[in-house]
């Protein structure tokens, strides 16, 4: 008897919420960024869990995880480059202090 899918989904929902909470509470751009990664991972967990419980022979859900990871990698590279540029201009990465479009 294997574990029901709802266990994994509950865990995924909790992880996602913690990610959202982090984005809301923290003002440090890097930590906000990490929380976004956390949310993506929660989604990945749900993908894999549902894929297994649907019982199809094809691992479609796992492929979506694969794509999410590829996009996340691209996003991290760009995002961190932006954070570094912002830091060089403003000497801060507090998102509340980075509030003007003009450098």
């Amino acid at each position, binding site marked *: 008897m294997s*574990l029901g899918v*709802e266990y994994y989904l509950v865990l995924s929902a909790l992880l996602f919420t913690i990610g959202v*909470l982090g984005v809301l509470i923290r003002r440090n751009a890097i930590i906000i960024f990490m929380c976004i990664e956390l949310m993506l991972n929660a989604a990945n967990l749900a993908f894999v869990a549902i894929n297994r419980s649907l019982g199809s022979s094809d691992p479609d859900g796992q492929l979506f995880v694969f794509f999410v990871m590829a996009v996340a990698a691209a996003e991290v590279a760009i995002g961190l480059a932006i954070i570094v540029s912002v830091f060089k201009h403003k000497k801060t990465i507090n998102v509340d202090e980075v509030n003007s479009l003009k450098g």
Partner: protein
Amino acid sequence: MTAEHVLFFVFGAVSLIGAISVISFRHPIYSALSLIVTFFAQAGLFVLLGAHFVAAVQVIVYAGAIMVLFLFVIMLLNLGTLSAKSALKGKLKGLAVVLGVLLAIQGVYIAMTAGTDTALESAQASTEVVTTYKIGELLFSKYLLPFEVTSLILLAALIGVIVLVKRENQAEN
């Protein structure tokens, strides 16, 4: 209690504790390390779900590459001093926590009722391990177009980063 139950609760608890540490540690380095722990526990969960390939890729991509980049940037910018004032205070924080709890309740409710969903109920959960061969086969047939698009996204990211950094250098000179 089967072995899967025990392992699920161990990995689940570790990933939750790690996730909470990410948002509660003051210093970004500690947050990053907690996130690595969470990713690790998630890789364990993927193994439990029979997704061995995804678990390995999770560790290689997230723990091995993405988080090293995070650490690199944190160390490069020496962000330690910023962290003390980098959290919401007072009423706003309370509001955020209330909203977060509401979201959690909603998410958990949806997840609990998902088991009674017709599509999930009728299906027989597969217990077999998904082989890398199968993933590759699907990736190069059904998902060929998304796969190529992903490579384009990565290329675009590559060029984007180079452009961002290059402009910086010329401005300094």
